[in-house]
């Protein structure tokens, strides 16, 4: 049904993402795949409204992994306008749309074009990476009939799929309980005995962080800089030691988190902190404060390609870190 002629092409379907946080998290996990290098990415962005700056960041993000954006498929007018202003080709990822690509960018055409086609991919599997061809395939929903059930489907899918399958990784629970850990990596964080640390009059709650607005920042946070926001914070870049991130919702750092991170600062115990490298000097979630263990050997230079994304959350009154392991 769909025939695109994009050399070295990849379709990444992010139309299931409900907000920018999810979008970037999912995109980053896909971009980590070594086969993505040097590819031209066709992005499916769905209904998500993206500002020009946000789209620019995503573009920079993709380019930082030695790939490039070939075209963008979006249902949102705002995203379309942003893409056009950035000179990114907007097109439906379908057979008809591709000729426009031919007209504007003839260099995309290969003599023997790689044909990207939609396949009947199992619904539950959001991402499928084929090792031999290096293609990442997503289910592409184009027909009107599917639209109707779309909302319900994605809601269920995201809550079920994202933790494991879509990232194609294993999660291992590292429980932190006064310095006792289940893995050999010793205790990474130790709960601080600080007594009542929530501001007066603030009570514990568990608001769904997905309903909160998200602040999107594409910069490096340096020592002494603070970001405070009522909602989720997403940072594309590193948060250096001495910086502070305070959010009433989730905190996501697409980079090295080395400063202090306080998620759920107004008592939200479902808030999470996640980073490509979780080296935070202190982790705070709602009223729980944990300090990094002194024995943890953090190198002076933390720049590394060996990222091990981790996610911290509260479970049974403790801060638990879920570690994403690479499957070699």
């Amino acid at each position: 049904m769909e025939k695109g002629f994009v050399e070295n092409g990849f379709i990444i379907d992010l139309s299931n993402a409900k907000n920018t946080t999810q979008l970037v998290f999912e995109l980053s996990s896909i971009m980590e795949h070594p086969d993505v290098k040097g590819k031209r990415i066709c992005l499916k962005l769905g209904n998500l409204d993206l500002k020009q700056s946000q789209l620019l960041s995503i573009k920079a993000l993709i380019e930082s992994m030695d790939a490039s954006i070939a075209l963008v498929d979006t249902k949102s007018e705002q995203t379309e306008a942003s893409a056009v202003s950035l000179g990114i080709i907007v097109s439906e990822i379908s057979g008809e749309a591709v000729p426009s690509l031919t007209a504007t960018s003839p260099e995309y055409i290969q003599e023997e074009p790689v044909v990207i086609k939609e396949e009947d991919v199992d619904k539950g599997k959001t991402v499928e990476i084929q090792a031999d061809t290096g293609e990442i395939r997503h289910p592409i929903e184009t027909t009107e009939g599917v639209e109707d059930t779309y909302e319900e489907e994605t809601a269920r899918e995201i809550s079920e799929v994202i933790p494991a399958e879509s990232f194609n990784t294993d999660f291992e629970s590292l429980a932190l309980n006064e310095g006792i850990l289940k893995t050999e990596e010793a205790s990474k964080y130790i709960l601080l005995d600080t007594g009542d640390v929530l501001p007066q009059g603030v009570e514990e709650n568990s608001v769904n962080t997905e309903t909160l607005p998200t602040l999107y920042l594409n910069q490096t946070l340096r020592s002494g800089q603070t970001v405070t926001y009522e909602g989720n914070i997403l940072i594309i870049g590193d948060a250096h030691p001495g910086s502070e991130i305070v959010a009433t919702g989730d905190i996501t750092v697409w980079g090295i988190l080395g400063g202090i991170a306080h998620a759920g600062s107004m008592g939200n115990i479902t808030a999470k902190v996640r980073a490509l490298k979780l080296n935070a000097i202190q982790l705070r979630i709602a009223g729980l404060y944990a300090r990094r263990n002194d024995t943890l050997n953090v190198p002076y230079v933390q720049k590394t390609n060996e990222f091990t994304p981790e996610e911290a959350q509260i479970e049974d009154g403790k801060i638990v870190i879920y570690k994403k392991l690479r499957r070699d």
Partner: protein
Amino acid sequence: MTGRVIVITSGKGGVGKTTTSANIGTALAKDGYKTVLIDTDLGLRNLDLLLGLENRIVYTIVDVIEERCKLKQALVKDKKNPNLSLLAAAQTRDKTAVTAEQLKEICDTLKEENDFVLVDCPAGIEQGFQNAVAGASEAIVVTTPEMSAIRDADRIIGLLEAKEEITSYKLLLNRVRPSLIKSNDMMSVDDVVEILSCPLIGIIPEDTGIITSTNKGEPIVNDEDALAGKAYRNVALRILGEEVPFLDLDEPKGFMAKIKNAFSKLKAKV
């Protein structure tokens, strides 16, 4: 009990105020005196790093002043020595968050329950310096044997003399390199003392161990073998009123050098 409040200042940056504060504080605590270190370098705090306490700081001096916590809550106990505690500076604020009166009040409260309150002063002579000096009655001026540092130290001593509350000030000469003094490439200790006409409280040799100790978050006084650590321990003893001779910095290393040194001393006497 009324403790002594000592401010450690220099005027010029990078001469070793924070290193000196951390080491003297640790040395005094090791000798059994209850000591509090106050970092007043708001926005550029380092003292917590040198002590390896960065990950324990929840409240800072600004939180105390703005009454978000009690003073006791903000004091971070040292990992090894229960006699030593730290009142950290806020990293995300600047010097305008604190006034001289507020800092004096904190010093006055702290000296009632401690033997020593050491105030680590920021570089410069502006508000930060005025704040740090406000609560102190004694001062240690840190300088290195370089003209620029000495010029700034001279300015600081002038400012300290003008303050009625400061009853005594002493000079600490840091990063001394005996080999350079010998080859006439560095000002000698006597030269510096003569230029500044200020009583000396210590001479600290340049020691590469300082770099490692800073990076590890472990003050060099805890290293029994390091010469700089020994020099800092001596400074602490002098603060306590003991008469300790200054270290012989050009201690020769090898056997031949020792003999050579003995001869040269003999020569000097003749």
